[in-house]
């Protein structure tokens, strides 16, 4: 129990603490706040697209800024801080160590995220979350774009510090009696994604500096008039961010491995297969980045290589799904909120995986690329799978964090609104993409089918919105008023809950 609500601690004690559970709590609260802010922007976008022409946003400039901040927020201020939050809570507990390896560095990494977030939200850039030059270097308005560059730079550094801390904690501080091959698969997921972060992120860090000097006019890395090449940026960007999509996904996969055996009351089907799939994917994940660039004019050979690289990563995801299904098979499943969200997440994982295969199938990418299809694809993954499993896991950790139990009834309402809404929005987006609707547009052709599909998407988004409103109300109400949880087995599944320990003294 960390925020002892019954016996509150002064806020500054949590803010200045370096204890892993306190830093974790800060990360989690930050991520949920940004989930809500990013969600509000998403509802604004969907409302604008409810009808062709102006619905609520008067001009495209504001619209472009809104979707840029939405995307940047969801990826870097919701998904990544949430992973750091859960990792901070659980990795030390699961490797049986008293804290993270470098507690002060840990707090520093968290506090770096704060100015990073502030730069993004105060700057309000319109570069899209990918900031492709020459738009971002020659046309995008300052200081917004510059603030975005510095914001991402700081967030990137914070990620790298966090990754180093996790790797050292897992490899060096793990209890000697606990062999690596008996460590929780969630710990494995954090280990491989931290290593991927170290390998992938420096490239983008360099690209950001190049963007900035190009913006200042002192270099022309991406300017063809000065001998540069705008496509070079895309290679640097996707070399980081294709692996990064697995950095978003794998911790969710690890959380699913934590939950599924417990809630199926059966041991995991194959621990070894989970480890193999993690490790292989963390390597093969680096061989597919240019599948985001199939329409930039790559040669036939390049396209073939990256298609093979992309398809080669699919069996690993398929192995995880098999492992989960086989674990659930014949189990006595308890359908509490964490398990519902995981099962919903797995169902949506199929759609996005199949959609991804279509995207990389060379001649088909010319139909899907940069349309709403792609928006449907990655949201199915990032909302439908990643965010679903995250929210489920937050329910699972709720007693650990608050010492109280959440209301299962409200959580059920949250789940069904979110699930139906997600299926509606992102399926409609896939289809409207096939009708040729480009992504990142403030207005669309007033064709009856396109209008109808956009309206279905908007209704779905509102359903998610209702679900999220219930979620936030539940979190606030039940962390103050929920009934005290049974800390040994809060879900009544006959499993020992996380090693419940009193906070250790401050460092």
């Amino acid at each position: 129990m960390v925020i002892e609500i019954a016996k509150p601690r002064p806020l500054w004690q949590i803010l200045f603490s370096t204890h892993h559970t306190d830093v974790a709590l800060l990360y989690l609260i930050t991520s949920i706040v940004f989930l809500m802010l990013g969600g509000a922007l998403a509802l604004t976008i969907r409302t604008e697209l409810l009808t062709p022409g102006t619905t609520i946003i008067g001009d495209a400039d504001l619209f472009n800024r809104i979707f840029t901040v939405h995307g940047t927020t969801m990826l870097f201020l919701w998904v990544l801080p949430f992973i750091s939050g859960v990792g901070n809570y659980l990795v030390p507990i699961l490797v049986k160590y008293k804290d993270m390896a470098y507690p002060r560095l840990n707090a520093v990494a968290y506090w770096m995220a704060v100015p990073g977030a502030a730069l993004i939200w105060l700057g309000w850039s319109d570069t899209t979350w990918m900031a492709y030059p020459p738009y971002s270097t020659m046309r995008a308005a300052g200081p917004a774009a510059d603030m975005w560059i510095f914001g991402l730079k700081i967030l990137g550094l914070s990620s790298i510090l966090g990754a180093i801390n996790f790797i050292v904690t897992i490899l060096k501080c793990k209890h000697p009696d606990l062999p690596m091959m008996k460590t929780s698969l969630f710990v494995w997921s954090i280990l491989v994604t931290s290593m991927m972060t170290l390998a992938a992120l420096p490239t983008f860090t360099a690209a950001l500096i190049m963007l900035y000097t190009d913006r200042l006019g002192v270099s022309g890395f991406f300017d063809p008039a000065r001998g540069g090449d705008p496509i070079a940026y895309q290679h640097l960007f996707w070399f980081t961010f294709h692996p990064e999509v697995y950095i978003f996904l794998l911790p969710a996969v690890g959380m699913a491995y934590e939950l599924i055996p417990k809630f199926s009351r059966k041991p995991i089907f194959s621990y070894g297969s989970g480890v193999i799939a993690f490790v292989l994917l963390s390597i093969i994940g680096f061989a597919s980045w240019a599948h985001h660039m199939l329409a930039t004019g790559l040669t036939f050979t390049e396209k073939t290589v990256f298609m093979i690289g992309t398809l080669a990563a699919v069996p690993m995801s398929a192995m995880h799904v098999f492992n989960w299904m086989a674990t659930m098979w014949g189990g006595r499943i308890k359908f509490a909120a964490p398990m519902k969200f995981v099962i919903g997440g797995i169902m949506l994982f199929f759609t996005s995986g199949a959609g991804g295969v279509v995207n990389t199938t060379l001649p088909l990418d010319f139909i899907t690329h940069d349309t709403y299809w792609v928006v449907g694809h990655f949201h199915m993954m990032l909302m439908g799978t990643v965010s679903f499993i995250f929210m489920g896991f937050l329910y699972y950790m709720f007693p650990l964090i608050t010492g109280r139990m959440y209301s299962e009834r409200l959580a059920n309402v949250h789940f069904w609104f979110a699930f139906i809404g997600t299926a509606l929005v992102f399926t409609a987006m896939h289809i409207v993409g096939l009708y040729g609707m480009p992504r990142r547009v403030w207005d669309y052709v007033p064709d009856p089918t396109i209008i109808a599909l956009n309206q279905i998407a908007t209704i779905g988004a509102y359903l998610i919105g209702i679900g999220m409103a219930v979620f936030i109300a539940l979190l606030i109400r039940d962390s103050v008023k929920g009934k005290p949880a049974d800390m040994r087995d809060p879900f009544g599944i006959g499993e020992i809950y996380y090693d419940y320990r009193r906070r250790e003294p401050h460092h």
Partner: protein
Amino acid sequence: MGSHVIYEWIYVGAVVSLLIWVGAEAWYGEKLLHEVPKDHITIKVTGQQWFWTFEHPDGKREVGTLHLKAGKVYKFEITGKDVIHAFNIPHFAVMIDAVPGRINTIWVKIPEDAVGEYLIQCREYCGLLHYNMRANLIVEA
């Protein structure tokens, strides 16, 4: 549990075979698309914030409208003037980026019976009026 792991291998084998098949089909399809038929007509396409310019082989230029003939094969040579755009005719699945400093090519055979008007649009974000960077394709008999 151990002996059940065989099922997982069978399943992985099935997934891998399926992917190899999809990959091979895709590779073959792309290869066919790669070879531009000999008797094509070349159109130069330039994208800039926020309109399209087309240049016919005889030097005739059009802005915002493109006239093509049904039944002919066209090769587009596409570039961008300021930022990256993407030249897209959704109806004929023509789509490739218009990148400053590069010329990308793509070809299409307009079917005999395709006389009519079609949408040309930009599919890569290019700033303020990206949503409205459209042109008209008029296919004549």
